[in-house]
């Protein structure tokens, strides 16, 4: 009985110790809000923008902010960060140079202030505010373990403009649609829109498919994605639940010409897509070739036997 109690206690202590060791493995959770913003400043005016930070993890974090420029990848809405910023209207306050200490579940705000001189050129400045977080004191690297650092970004697009409403100039760069599709496949297309103005604009419009009779068989509303100034972006549609989705038309069998019409603002582009049973033709061709090869082989075997 005594031995049983001792063994049970030792086993329990083992599991408690194991659990405690696992519980000591802590990480990092940083929340920024807003994730992206748009700010318009008239030349000669000042403005400010505030970003909220929250440490939702269990470790105290030291967070260092840094403002960087970003460029678009021309296709999606994911910024490509550059190593520095050339934005000259950001007031370099102490807040940008002092690390922010966030206790577990602690919150803080970083306020950026801008001063745009009169006569400043109308231009858009895509910025990313990078928050790099690490454990305080982790600069002294423990040489028996490799430290991991996390950084989170909040994007801010600053438009300097004296226009009450910036000129909108969205055009279709390409329809991204095939000319031929197999009858048993889907019609998939990915239009790319180009913003030829200096200010970001929201994509709007629709894509419509018509069959050979001119009857509308599908209509895709365009998701209101933001296209930054002098950039391109691949368009998306959306579901009835407002979830973004690709442009895909599914049908059990497609045959003949289909007209795709994409309308963006006041411009419209069209393309004819031809659906043919290519896979059937290939299968038939393969079947024919296989038959010919088989008969020729059979004939040569028969001739060989006769000899």
């Amino acid at each position, binding site marked *: 009985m005594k031995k049983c109690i001792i063994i049970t206690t030792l086993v329990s202590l083992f599991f408690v110790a194991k659990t405690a060791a696992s519980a000591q*493995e*802590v*990480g*990092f*959770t*940083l*929340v*920024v*809000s*807003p*994730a*992206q913003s748009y700010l318009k400043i008239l030349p000669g005016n000042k403005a*400010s923008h*505030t970003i*909220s930070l929250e440490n*939702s*993890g269990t*470790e105290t974090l030291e967070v260092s902010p840094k403002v960087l420029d970003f460029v678009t990848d021309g296709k*999606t*809405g*994911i*910024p490509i*960060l550059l190593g520095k910023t050339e934005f000259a209207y950001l007031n370099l306050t102490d807040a940008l140079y002092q690390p922010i200490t966030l206790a577990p579940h602690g919150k803080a*705000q970083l*306020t950026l202030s801008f001063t745009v001189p009169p006569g400043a050129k109308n231009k858009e400045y*895509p910025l*990313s505010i*990078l928050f*790099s977080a*690490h*454990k305080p004191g*982790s600069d002294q*690297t*423990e*040489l*028996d*373990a*490799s*430290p*991991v*650092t*996390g*950084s*989170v*970004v*909040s*994007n801010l*697009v600053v438009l300097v403009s004296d226009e009450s409403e910036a000129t909108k100039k969205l055009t279709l760069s390409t329809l991204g649609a095939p000319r031929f599709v197999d009858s048993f496949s889907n019609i998939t297309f990915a239009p790319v829109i180009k913003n030829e103005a200096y200010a970001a604009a929201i994509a709007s419009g629709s894509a419509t498919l018509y069959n050979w009779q001119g009857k509308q068989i599908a209509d895709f*509303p365009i*998701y209101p*994605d*933001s296209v*930054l100034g002098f950039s391109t972006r691949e368009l*998306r549609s*959306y579901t*009835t639940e*407002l*979830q*973004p989705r690709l442009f895909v038309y599914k049908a059990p069998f497609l045959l003949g010409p289909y007209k795709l019409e994409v309308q963006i603002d006041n411009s419209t582009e069209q393309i004819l897509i031809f659906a043919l049973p290519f896979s059937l033709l290939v299968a038939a061709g393969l079947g024919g070739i296989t038959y010919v090869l088989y008969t020729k082989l059979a004939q040569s075997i028969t001739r060989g036997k006769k000899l």
Partner: protein
Amino acid sequence: MQLKSAVLWGIAWATAWGSYQLALAPVLAERLESDSYVIQFGNFNVTAGEKSSASYKVTDTVGQTGAGPYGEYGVSSYFIGGGFQYIYQIDQFSFSISKLTIDLGELTTGAHNTDDLTLSITTRGAGGYAVYTYETKPLTHQDGSHTVADTICDSGSCTEAAAGLWTNVNVGGFGFNATGADAASDFLTTDHFRQFADNSTAETMQSIMSSSDIVEDETVVVTYKAGLSTASQAAGRYETATVYVAVPGY
């Protein structure tokens, strides 16, 4: 009698005129801020807050003016979410790393050591997100003079941008694998590894997980692997710092 009527008319006109002026009074909004704080989305109302029970959770704001929605997606040409509750449309972006140290143990030839961590992303923005990573320097021995080169995988073809199969324990190096629904597509299996982009040689950090959609607690497991190539490399503990940068889409 006439004087009395005149006074009464005068009072009536004054009351009407005063009411008219009050009705036209401009609406002023307060931006509550000081040198040390800014109150975002201030709202004067009758009642507000979070209410919950075992079967529901609701937030409400009662008594604000002009509460929306106005318009409807797919029906009208506009949509306005008016009112404090639409704060939830304004997105937060959350990034988690399960641990802040990686322990690869003692490296020796003829063996690969591994350790892993988990990345987690939540974003309400329909622009999606991307997570990039890089190393601050090559994997370096405690003595500071020996390094382990970034892996080139079994075939010698993997880079910081393209993963390759790495299972041969006699092929040393340092690399990582990323596994998850949003992991980069070149990580075909858990045995496909990439190098980390080396910041000390100005290599560009690379995306390892991304999505163009809204995600909630989307996770990717990053497995670090290291091993020595030859016996001439010093056995022992090596370390480097790795950085993960989470970027929301717009």
